[in-house]
């Protein structure tokens, strides 16, 4: 298990989701990914993508300018 960070700042929907999706393809089950965004829509979209694709959102938090989404990569077989 290892921790990773994805900088998706300044990207607007659906780019944060695409970057998350592509990053998770390179990770293994149990890895933790923190996605940092500035588009508040990511707070809806990235967790929705995780629910659809079987990954677990451990935590979301927001500051005035940024959104943080912490994801645990699950074993969902072929992620392609």
């Amino acid at each position: 298990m290892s921790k990773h960070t994805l900088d998706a700042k300044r990207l607007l929907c659906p780019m944060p989701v695409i970057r998350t999706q592509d990053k998770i393809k390179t990770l293994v089950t149990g890895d933790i990914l923190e996605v940092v965004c500035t588009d508040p829509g990511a707070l809806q979209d990235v967790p929705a993508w995780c629910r659809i694709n079987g990954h677990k959102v451990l935590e979301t938090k927001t500051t005035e300018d940024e959104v943080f989404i912490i994801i645990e990569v699950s074993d969902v077989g072929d992620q392609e």
Partner: protein
Amino acid sequence: MSKQRKAVSLISGGLDSLLATKVILDQGIHVEGINFFTGFCVEGHTHAIRKQDKDKVKRNNALWSAEKLGVKLHIIDVIEEYKDVLLNPKHGYGQNMNPCLDCKGFMVKKAVEWIKENDFDFIITGEVIGQRPMSQRKETMPIIQRESGAGDLLLRPLCAKNLPETLPEREGWVDREKLLDFSGRTRKPQMALAEKYNFEGYATPAGGCCFLTDKNYSDKLVDMWQHRSSRDYELDDLMMLKVGRHIRPNENFKMIIGREQGENKFMEGYRKMYPYIHCTSHNGPLTLIDGTISEADAELAARIAARFGQGRDAEEVEMSINYLDGKNTIIKVKPMPKDEILEEWYV
């Protein structure tokens, strides 16, 4: 035991693809969704940028549809490949800069590649014969099948009974009798089917997130191309067309003036890519300059930019001009009177 058949559905986020996918799921087919990001399906971007919209609920409709259906969704970045579709559409544009027929053919072609790579059996779309846009006319539907290479692997569940049998129907993977015969522009059959499935809160208009169908956006895109040596573009260019007031007081440069705090904040991220102007003596918007400006241009731009700040009625305001090479100059100007900003300067 028969093989579990698998279909990929082009999920736009509109009602038709939601229904088409559900119709096929109900026949026991394993369905996964695919959504292509061309750079122009920018739903929610204005909400994401503008501060006044910060409290509005934002969602990606394709993700919403997939979650409603309980299917996986693959969102694929096709920005680079899509340039050729937009710049050289074999079948031309629609009312604005929308190359709908080429666009649909491109997406189905990408889906053909995807099913080959992922060992899926066929493709479904939410197309309805006779419905807008032009890609859904009776005579254009076979063109999409032919030019995409999908042939009879492309099934349109909502209007399949009005079309020749496809491979999934002939092979008995899906029951043609349980497919539908929708046609024309009326949305009533779709709405009735949505009610039957208890689908509420779906996006309207169906799949209408493409900014190329928007006249104002298309006009800005054409203006951008007309004032550059090449029609090539990057995603950042497309984003800039969505933000701010666009004013072109001179052929060699265009001003992008933030309209509110959220836009100014968003535009701050582009200060390394564009020369920019802001007022240092009064509160005012950030202005990005698309193009190359001389000192005389900078003064003209500063006077116009000052018009949109709180110093608009002052005799003189102090403006900071920042160039890409890091050079910064402060100049004092009189804000341009409203009636001197010509209507034809607005893009």
